[in-house]
């Protein structure tokens, strides 16, 4: 029988009637009259709605639209309501007061001159027909035009409850694998003596695909890598080899961290990025492999053979951004992902003085104190970057209280002897300033006095004052607010002058292979790789410092890049919409334009353009 809690009919309230009456100038409507009217209006409205349903059904829709109501009214020979064509649903507002509760439609005043002066809206695209194979001899090919063979929900269900896969063989057949002819019979006969195990068998084609993809991703051919990454990011049918992909990545990171192979680590992180971008995959199941790999690439003590030369900072930045993306996408109240990741990074920033007086955790912290005393600057940098990507609030809570101690570390290293340490400290300082400035700007009111800053923030105080003051004065920062202000900042400081010693990083070995190559398609995600207008034959003896920029916007041609004689590799990847929406919360520096304009034309004390810059990966 039907639902017992179903209520037969709701009706308009008497209050509504009175308000409507008032709006047309009838001040005193009696209760009886209002009731009578309310009943009648309710009835008529419902009759109209019932008929509108018919129009909806015949328009082959499942959502009632305003035109349906218009047509119903027309068919009932009532004057239609003009001017209610609304592209989206009507925004009802609620208001209460004076003992009344109201729902009303917000009608904004429209400035006609504004509409007239505005550029005309884009002409909608004409309807076109596109053909594809939904099924070939009863098998649905996994092409992007078809939905993924296993939807995310089913993948999720399988990960939560693997038995469900065994229980519903028919369902699975209906969704994924072919179930006709020989295959069906084979399956039927097989299932008799095969042990009940949820297996992920890979077909020969899939094995070949896996081999090709992994080889291309870590191989030397940049073109193939782009294609492979695109395939990873777009193909709908990857879920079956996902476990293998994730193992590949995590094992790869383990090996290459030990071997300090920066290039391969970057490639692996780009694979992670591609998998994250794939809409049809349910990655939750494999986060336990991906997160350690990514966090390794953020905070590892050493990621490359020559820390003073190679740009491992970019990898840390990129991996931080990935981590932020992971946290945004997968954080739930049950897995507490973001909390755990935050704790991981915060632990690396643990400093002796503050653990005691601020956290007051107790004696267990004493050990971490000692360790964190020794935490390498590169790891600190990674931790700061990782936290910074998680949003200004995190910066405020976890980095700001430790800034004094961090400043001491930086000061110590800068005054020290080790070249690598000095460089690392420089980077860390720059990064801290970049991260902290917008937060501090929001926290403190002008005027910014260097003494106060010095008192509150220690060594970094004076630099911070400058930074904050600059941001306050710059119009872009003023409009953008704290979170956005980070975006406009410059990339981390790396050696301020190109180091003369010949040490080609693993990345450089490819630079000559793809000079002036531009791949630009209208596909969803494209990767543009181009070299600077003055391609320079890279002699191994004088390797120019490189610039890696992976830019988010498709519209910005890489030519905007100030060419300073050095060869640049600009990897230009259009961003899927999700990532952009994430940026609302996190200061992920995605927009590349500010970097270019400031670096080129600003003339402010910015790092010279030939600096390595991987920070705009993503």
């Amino acid at each position, binding site marked *: 029988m039907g639902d017992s809690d*179903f209520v037969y009919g709701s009706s308009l309230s008497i209050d509504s009637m009175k308000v409507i009456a008032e709006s047309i100038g009838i001040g005193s409507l009696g209760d009886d009259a209002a009731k009578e009217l309310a009943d009648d209006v*309710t009835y008529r409205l419902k009759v109209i709605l019932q008929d509108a349903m018919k129009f909806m*059904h015949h328009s082959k829709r499942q959502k009632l639209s305003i035109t349906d109501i218009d*047509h119903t009214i027309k*068919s009932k020979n009532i004057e239609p309501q003009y001017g209610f064509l609304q592209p989206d649903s009507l925004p009802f507002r609620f208001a209460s007061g004076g003992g009344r509760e109201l729902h009303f439609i917000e009608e904004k005043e429209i400035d006609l001159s504004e509409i007239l002066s505005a550029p005309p809206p884009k002409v909608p695209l004409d309807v076109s027909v596109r053909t594809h194979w*939904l*099924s070939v001899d*009863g098998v649905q090919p996994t092409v992007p035009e078809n939905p993924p063979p296993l939807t995310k929900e089913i993948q999720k269900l399988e990960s939560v409850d693997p038995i469900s896969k065994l229980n519903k063989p028919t369902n699975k057949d209906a969704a994924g694998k072919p179930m006709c002819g020989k295959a069906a019979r084979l399956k039927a006969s097989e299932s008799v003596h095969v042990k009940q195990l949820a297996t992920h068998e890979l077909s020969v084609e899939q094995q070949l695909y896996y081999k090709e993809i992994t080889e291309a991703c870590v191989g030397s051919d940049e073109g193939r890598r782009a294609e492979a990454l695109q395939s990873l990011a777009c193909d709908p049918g990857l879920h079956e080899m996902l476990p293998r992909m994730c193992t590949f990545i995590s094992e790869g990171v383990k090996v290459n961290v030990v071997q300090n192979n920066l290039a391969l680590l970057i490639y692996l992180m780009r694979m992670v990025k591609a998998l994250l971008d794939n809409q049809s995959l349910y990655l939750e199941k494999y986060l336990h492999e991906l997160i350690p790999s990514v966090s390794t690439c953020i905070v590892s003590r050493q990621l490359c053979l020559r820390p003073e030369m190679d740009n491992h900072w970019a990898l840390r930045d990129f991996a931080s951004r990935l981590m932020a993306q992971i946290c945004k996408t997968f954080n739930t109240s049950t897995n507490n992902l973001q909390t755990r990741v935050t704790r991981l990074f915060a632990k690396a920033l643990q400093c002796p003085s503050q653990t005691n007086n601020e956290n007051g955790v107790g004696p267990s912290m004493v050990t971490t104190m000692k360790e964190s005393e020794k935490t390498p600057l590169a790891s600190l940098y990674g931790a700061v970057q990782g936290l910074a990507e998680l949003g200004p609030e995190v910066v405020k809570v976890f980095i700001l209280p430790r800034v004094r101690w961090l400043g001491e570390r930086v000061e110590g290293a800068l005054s020290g002897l080790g070249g690598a340490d000095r460089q690392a400290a420089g980077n860390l300082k720059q990064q801290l300033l970049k991260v902290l400035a917008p937060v501090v700007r929001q926290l403190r009111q002008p005027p910014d006095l260097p003494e106060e800053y010095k008192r509150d923030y220690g060594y970094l105080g004076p630099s911070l004052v400058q930074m904050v003051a600059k941001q306050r004065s710059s119009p872009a920062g003023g409009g953008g607010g704290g979170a956005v202000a980070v975006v406009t900042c410059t990339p981390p400081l790396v050696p301020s002058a190109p180091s003369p010693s010949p040490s080609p990083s693993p990345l450089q070995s490819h630079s000559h292979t793809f000079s002036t190559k531009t791949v630009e398609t209208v596909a969803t995600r494209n990767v543009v790789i181009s070299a600077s207008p003055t391609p320079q034959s890279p002699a191994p003896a004088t390797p120019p410092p490189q610039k890696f920029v992976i830019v988010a916007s498709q519209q910005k041609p890489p030519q905007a890049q100030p060419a300073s004689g050095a060869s640049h590799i600009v990897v230009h990847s259009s961003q899927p919409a999700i990532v952009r929406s994430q940026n609302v919360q996190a200061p992920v520096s995605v927009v590349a334009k500010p970097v270019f304009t400031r670096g080129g034309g600003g003339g402010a004390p910015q790092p010279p353009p030939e600096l390595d810059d991987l920070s705009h990966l993503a």
Partner: protein
Amino acid sequence: MGDKSTPLLAVLQLLRKYNLKGTEEILRKEASLGDAEYENLDLPEVELASILTAHHTESDPYSYEFAYESLKKFIENSLDIYKYELSTLLYPIFVHMYMVLILYEHTTHAANFLEKFGPEQEDYYQEDLKKFSIVKNKDQIKGNELAEIYSSNKFVVQLSRDASSQLKRFLHEQKTTVIINIINNHIQIEVHDGPGRSLAQIRATAGGMLGEATRNENRTKVYYGLLKEPDIQLPPVPVEDEEETEETPDKPKKKKAKKDNIFMKKPKSDPNAPPSDRIPLPEMKETDKLEKGKALREASKRVHLGPDSLPSICFYTLLNSGHTAICADICDDSTLLAVGFNNSTIKVWTLTPVKLRGMKSAEKLQDIDREAGDVLVRMMEEKDRDTCRTLFGHSGPVYKVAFDPFKNLLLSCSEDSTVRLWSLQCWTCLVVYRGHVWPVWAVRWSPHGHYFASAGHDRAARLWATDHHQPLRIFAGHLSDVDCVQFHPNSNYIATGSSDRTIRVWDCLTGTQVRIMTGHKSPIFVLSFSVCGRWLASGGGGGELMIWDISTGLPAATLPPAHTAPIHALAFSRDGTILSTGSLDCSIKLWDFTAITEEVSGEEIGNNSTVQKDDRFLLRSFPTKNSPIKDLHFTRRNLLLGVGSYEGSS
């Protein structure tokens, strides 16, 4: 005068209705009624009936609740063999009690009554009940669609002889006459010999707006066989050559056999076929014969389908169409696609590299030698080719488009209550057929051309011939909108499906209703006859699919509700082995139709209805990427084509 006069007026009206002049005069004088009231005697039937039956029961609103409860108790306590049949009485009695309560303005009692017993009515009546429950006072009953249907028609309930005598006994024991009155006035009890039916049997046929179809209504013989195919002289030699060169010589032996089969298949005299001159069919034109010949040749290359060899599906996605595309149709030889839009336009695409051409202007046509062999080619414009053409003319959403069997004409129907005939050579509108008063929901060609049928919001279906601007037949009888219409393959019958949850089959010759089939639990949106003409498949608003046997008018199979949204497309493969359904839930499903019919013929001897609970007829399901299916079409070679509009990722 007030209240007192209303019963008198009612009596007067009744007297007038039966033409009892003398009594009428006397009563008028005695009651001293003025002429004004007398002239305005126009009480609606509903009220009249209620007033005249009022006198004994009017008093006590509680008696209804009590009577209903005692009826319920009686049914619950009766033997299992009667129980289910008797329980079909509950809904109509419930509805009429509610209506009477409202007529006597016991509105609060009525609301309580609805609240109390409404939820326990059968689930397939809940939708109606929801619609009916908006009626909350006497005035609203008059104009309400459902209330009028209930009060002016009798609800049909089928009972076995024993069950009906049980019921009689119960009614005699009752003190109040409430239930007896309702049964007398509003319920038609059909007594059948034989044992009481089981729950499953009742469920299979229950669900119509006014109960089940009575058996007598489906007695008429229906000639469901196919007409003899006209002999078409194929130019035999070139055909052979063409085939040899075109096809990879895979299994030449088998192909031969297949081909013979198709050409020999023509039934010499199908016992169920109507006489070929039962309704006049148009003479085939020379070009039509060519087309038919091509079709036969194509058919000989047809792939045989079955559970082991499923068809390939080619899917046409309409991009950038959002919610604007409404309906689609693919012409018989699968070269053209027509789509009707929300914005009153129709677009026609060519699906082959052959571009769409218009005809030359009248002046230029005069210059053409009419005797020339290639006159058909010559009269077309040489330039001016397009892959897509738009037809303007309607002034409301286009709800259905249909290509004629010979690809020369296109029909469309729209919200503006017109049907339009378009030429696919001039690309202009040829005729506007006016006749429907409200939106026209469906239009279909006869398989032989010339005739077409339309159906609409005015609860009627109409049969037209292209050369008449008036309908040839009007098929009225549905209680609610006629949502879909379909010609029988022999052009002698039309099936209509309606929001009153019945399917009716009408004879084109006599214009009478020959079948009424109940069992759907939601509005019927699409119908399709099987290739052999005996079976009718219907898809409903709830995503359910039913197969009907035209020879008996009974449901042959109720397939499990695999779709979760309304089915709007049905297509039989050309050899009749596979049935495909497309739904708004963005999936296409394939059903093993051979197995379904075999099952039915096997069980037919035993009993009349079967309800399938398992999935064994469902072969495969293909989801599309957020593209609700608008149309399905099997090509002559058994490739399945689907049309859907992409609604964006959400």
